[in-house]
């Protein structure tokens, strides 16, 4: 769907993007991760043609970017903004028309989205009279109103209460079902694990990670296992890390240290009955922090 090749961008002497390659398959939710200043916003702005890259190419559905392809992108910037003095209705119609819908199409779609988002009663209110969450909903509608095939969401959940965050999450999933490709830029790892199929991580202008969530987790498993033992037959080696101990059960966290899983299991069986043996996968949050730290040392 979206293919990025050797993308470079600098602001003066500051490198914002260095040799970025990225393939976003159609119909997935693609998480774009990275700390502040990693280059995510620059990348998004280039995809949106707000700014121009220094070198490299961006292709959308097999075509280089142009004003025509823009019509197929929907963009929700991180810092939200709408015309405060305009009514919900006028605003949504305006953005739809700017995105290329005809007056008739715009009316139909705005009406149905207002119903869907449960804000139809607010259509004649000015934005400045709405609550923050309500305005966020309007902005979300403005982003998706022209039925983009690529949706770029920058921190889409910030500012929403849990109920409305759930509503937005469901809308995102519904859009994915309809075949929309979604590029999600966020710091919130729990939403990444919940929603994303595929992630890429940027740090200091470079891509440091890319792959499906499962692949990445597998690649970076720190070779830890959690074990529950019962009916100990002998004292455990002092180097083993005991997490908890009660009524003859011991919770352990062990490192494989190059040993095979089966070798460790055999070793454990000598100490008692193995009730639980589980490979410990890192959370995306841990991975994120670990990767950023590891790559910032250079």
């Amino acid at each position, binding site marked *: 769907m979206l293919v990025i090749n050797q993308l470079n961008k600098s602001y003066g002497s500051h490198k914002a993007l260095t040799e970025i390659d990225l393939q976003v398959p159609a119909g997935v939710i693609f998480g774009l991760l990275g700390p502040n200043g990693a280059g995510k916003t620059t990348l998004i702005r280039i995809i*949106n043609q707000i700014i121009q890259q220094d070198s490299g190419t961006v292709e959308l559905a097999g075509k280089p970017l142009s004003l025509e392809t*823009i019509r197929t992108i929907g963009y929700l910037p991180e810092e939200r*903004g709408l015309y405060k003095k305009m009514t919900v209705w006028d605003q949504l119609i305006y953005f739809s*028309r700017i995105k290329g819908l005809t007056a008739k199409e715009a009316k139909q779609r705005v009406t149905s989205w207002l119903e869907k988002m449960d804000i139809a009663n607010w259509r004649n209110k000015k934005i400045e009279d709405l609550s923050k969450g309500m305005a966020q909903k309007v902005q979300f509608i403005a982003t998706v109103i022209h039925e983009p095939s690529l949706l770029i969401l920058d921190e889409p959940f910030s500012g929403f209460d849990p109920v409305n965050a759930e509503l937005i999450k469901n809308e995102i999933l519904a859009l994915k079902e309809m075949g929309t490709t979604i590029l999600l830029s966020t710091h919130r790892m729990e939403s990444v694990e919940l929603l994303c199929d595929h992630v890429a991580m940027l740090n200091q202008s470079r891509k440091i990670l890319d792959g499906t969530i499962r692949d990445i987790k597998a690649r970076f498993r720190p070779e830890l296992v959690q074990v529950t033992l019962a009916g100990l037959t002998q004292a455990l080696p002092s180097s083993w890390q005991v997490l908890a101990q009660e009524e003859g059960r011991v919770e352990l966290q062990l490192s494989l240290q190059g040993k095979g899983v089966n070798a460790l299991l055999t070793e454990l069986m000598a100490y008692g009955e193995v009730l639980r043996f589980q490979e410990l996968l890192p959370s995306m949050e841990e991975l994120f922090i670990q990767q950023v730290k590891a790559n910032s040392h250079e």
Partner: protein
Amino acid sequence: MSKVLLVIQREYLARVKKKSFLIATLLTPLIFPAIMGVFVWIATEEKENQALRIIEVVDESGLFFMESSEQYAFSSSTDNLEAAKALVKSGERYGLLYLPNLDLTAPKGIQYYGLENPSTSLVSYLESSLKRKIEDQRLFAKGIDPAVLKEIRTEVVLQSLTLGESGEETINDATVNYALGFLSGILIYLFIFIYGNQIMQGVIEEKSTRIVEILVSSLKPFQLMMGKIVGIGAVGLTQFLIWVLLIGTFSTVVMGVLGMQMPQQQAMELANPELMATAPDPGELGAILQVLSGIDFVTLVIAFICYFLGGYLLYGALFAAVGAAVDAPSDAQQFMFPITIPLLIAYMGLFVFVLQDPTSSVSFWLSIFPLTSPIAMMGRISFGVPFWELALSLSLLVGGFLGTTWLAAKIYRIGILMHGTKPSYALIWKWIRSSQ
């Protein structure tokens, strides 16, 4: 192109639909006449309600007899200066005029006493009547009969006419021309500032709320900037046209009520002496109307619209550039300097040079140079400006706004997406020079 129209439409409707626009548009043409009306009313009220002020005259020469007026009465109940002062102190007299034994060839030592400072109108009233009395006395001393003197006194009113190229003569009046030049010059100045500021505020709003990031992906920054400038300009033009209509209707109604004729009718009658003969004497107001009929209002209104549009586009682009360069209105101050200075120069020039002497060389250059011409030329229009000067001034103005628009577009395009950096003139210069 159709997207620019959408932007223009939005900018226009967002402002015209506001209640504040309606109120400002309807009230402004009423405010000036209303303020003047209030002054006139207060003045007449004061005159009517004011108790007659009695001024004691102590005349040691015995030559003067002061005539009482509507406001002032003169009495001479005592010859003693101290006693007269006491009368003033006790409040029985408003003031005291002391005339010593005068040498009429060099009158000195005339004094006025009062509990409060006398108004300038009182002082000049006293001075002028004393002057006349003294002159009369001296003429009489030279053997001229006061009756003859009265007969000789004449009032002169100058009627000034301009000769047109095709031989037509139009009555004009320096005061009326001054007033028209003054009004239209100030109006352009205010329009540029008010609507220029609206452009700047609008650009800052779109920038700070990141609306621009959604918009520039669908249309070019230049389209967005021009859409905003044109849309807001159309608001200004709408407002002006409503004013012209309102004032036109209003004055027709007022003149109808007062039983007077519109300038056009007057002009027709001037051309048709038979009608003129049957018409009643126009009187003083009629004289003003005659002067007004000599002014080419069509030229005035068209020139106003041209200079408003030209000046507005020229400065509007600069206002847009400033809005794009800063993050908040409070940061805009430092960049307002290059906009404010030429506008102020034009404004000061209007009063100091243009209205005083519309054909002087300073007035000429002020009305040719595009940064000052919108205001300066409006000050000259009602006095009559040669066609070639208008053509030169307007074509330079067109060149000027193309120039500022080109410059502003370069600043706008980069500035609108910059956040968090405090821009300086050096940085803006870099933006202008960067090709991308």
